[in-house]
């Protein structure tokens, strides 16, 4: 492999990391509050708003059931509005964020629903307000599960980011398609896949370790 190709792969890896990092940050910012809302707004819950809960739930489901590649194309006008362009690495961040946010919302919802209801009752009994219950009980108790969820989301986004290569998104996927597939360079294709595997492995290990550290339910050594 020529030095230029190695350089291209390094550059593409950084592009992928940048896309995924910014997209996951945006998606987390939107997804965590959405997940908390979904978990606490059902009938008889802390912020009971069953109708709103259903509407948000529907939007989340609709976004999640749209195939990613269709989503990318469908929201091009929005992408132009936000990123100023519809091709390139920056443009890819928009659909990536929008695809990941509802995914994270559902994972956070599950993590929060897993928190023992007795803790909520104890907090109510000590006079905590619903907001205090979320801040001081639900989120801290759900943090280990949320860390695992975010890991899952990052791994999925790495996969999605390879797909935005198909629409000129830049990054490893783009490199793989343009050099590996269109120019018949199997070694580039293989290198891209190897880098992706290493990335995913690394993210998963970091996530697992982090979640284990955060989880005080298991005795630490």
């Amino acid at each position: 492999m020529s030095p230029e190709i190695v350089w291209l792969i390094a550059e593409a890896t950084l592009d992928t990391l940048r896309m995924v990092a910014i997209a996951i940050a945006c998606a987390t910012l939107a997804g965590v509050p959405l997940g908390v809302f979904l978990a606490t707004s059902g009938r008889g819950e802390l912020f009971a708003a069953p109708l709103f809960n259903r509407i948000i739930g529907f939007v989340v489901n609709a976004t999640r059931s749209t195939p990613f590649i269709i989503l990318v194309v469908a929201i091009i006008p929005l992408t132009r509005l936000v990123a100023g362009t519809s091709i390139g690495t920056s443009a890819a961040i928009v659909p990536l964020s929008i695809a990941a946010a509802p995914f994270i919302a559902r994972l956070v919802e599950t993590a929060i629903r897993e928190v023992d209801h007795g803790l909520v009752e104890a907090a109510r009994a000590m006079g905590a307000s619903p907001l205090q219950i979320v801040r001081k009980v639900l989120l801290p108790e759900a943090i280990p599960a949320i860390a695992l969820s975010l890991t899952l989301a990052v791994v999925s986004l790495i996969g999605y980011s390879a797909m935005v290569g198909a629409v000129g998104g830049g990054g490893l996927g783009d490199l793989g398609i343009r050099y590996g597939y269109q120019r018949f360079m199997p070694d580039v294709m293989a290198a891209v896949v190897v880098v992706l595997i290493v990335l995913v492995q690394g993210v998963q290990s970091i996530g697992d370790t982090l979640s284990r550290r955060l989880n005080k339910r298991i005795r630490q050594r």
Partner: protein
Amino acid sequence: MNIQTPLFKPTALAAQTADAIIRFEAVHKAFPARQGGAAVTALEQIDLDVDRGSIVGVIGRSGAGKSTLIRLANGLEKPTGGRVIVDGVEVSALPEPALRDVRRSIGMIFQHFNLLSSRTAFDNVALPLEVAGVGKAAIKARVEPLLELVGLTDKRDRYPAELSGGQKQRIGIARALATEPKVLLSDEATSALDPETTQSILDLLASINRELGLTILLITHEMSVIRRIAQKVAVLEAGRVVEQGDVFDIFTRPAHATTRSFLGSATGRALPPSVARRLSADVQPGSQALVRIVFRGHFASEPVLAQLSRERGIEANLVAGQIDEVAGKPFGILNVALPAADATLASALDYLRQRDFDVEILGYVT
């Protein structure tokens, strides 16, 4: 025969004034119907007073409504009828935001402790203070003495997962006391603990009651818990209070069948299975009358069977029994076999009744 020496010191009655700090007035609670089902009535016509500084126990089987009852006291549940008044405030009429302030003066402990796994012992005890907006320094000044009170100063930086059940409940108690409440609600606080740990937690609760003058309302399904620390008891059955009064009276003269079944083996009231099998309602040739003698108060220390033999020449054969202490007073039950001959039996019963024992013929055994 099973004679237990008292394992505990009599609970000194805290200075009691007659005013009720918690009062349930004609309380009714029904849960709305779920799809396809009928509304469920959890509590009906509950009248119950908890005197300031006392320990009151509510005993009932699961499903009797005791969890609902205790949750009415801090407004976690709203009654569908009647009033719940705590320290002069009608909690049953308060909206949720106002209830939050009231709840800070009512501590609560739970069967499964409900400690936050993500917080250390110290931070768990600090939580109610954080919720109340108390500053960091003041929190430290309050939490440390509480950890000392429950004997867990050395565990302050441990997470609940690193503590035993009894230690977790101690942290739960410290947490409940953090906001200096006037009332402590105990929801089956010892039901998940082994007998020894139960004893130590009950001792702790009794000493808190004594030293801090804290009123305790506890619910349980174990008579032994009531006997050890409560002064008054209410027996709950299918949403109604079927019997209530002083613990000693209820233990020694239970009126309701539910109460009797709760007392069962706890007080020597239950017969050994081999005897119970042979018990029949009719006199047969050669059979003896099985008589239950209940000793209340100071009579429990009299050698009554020996006296019966000496003064009337009637030999009583001891079958089963227990001498113990309830709410600090001696109390015993002896099940004895007496000669079934009419005149002898009548003479023996007469002798016992004269001495103010409760006597009951259970049946006849061969």
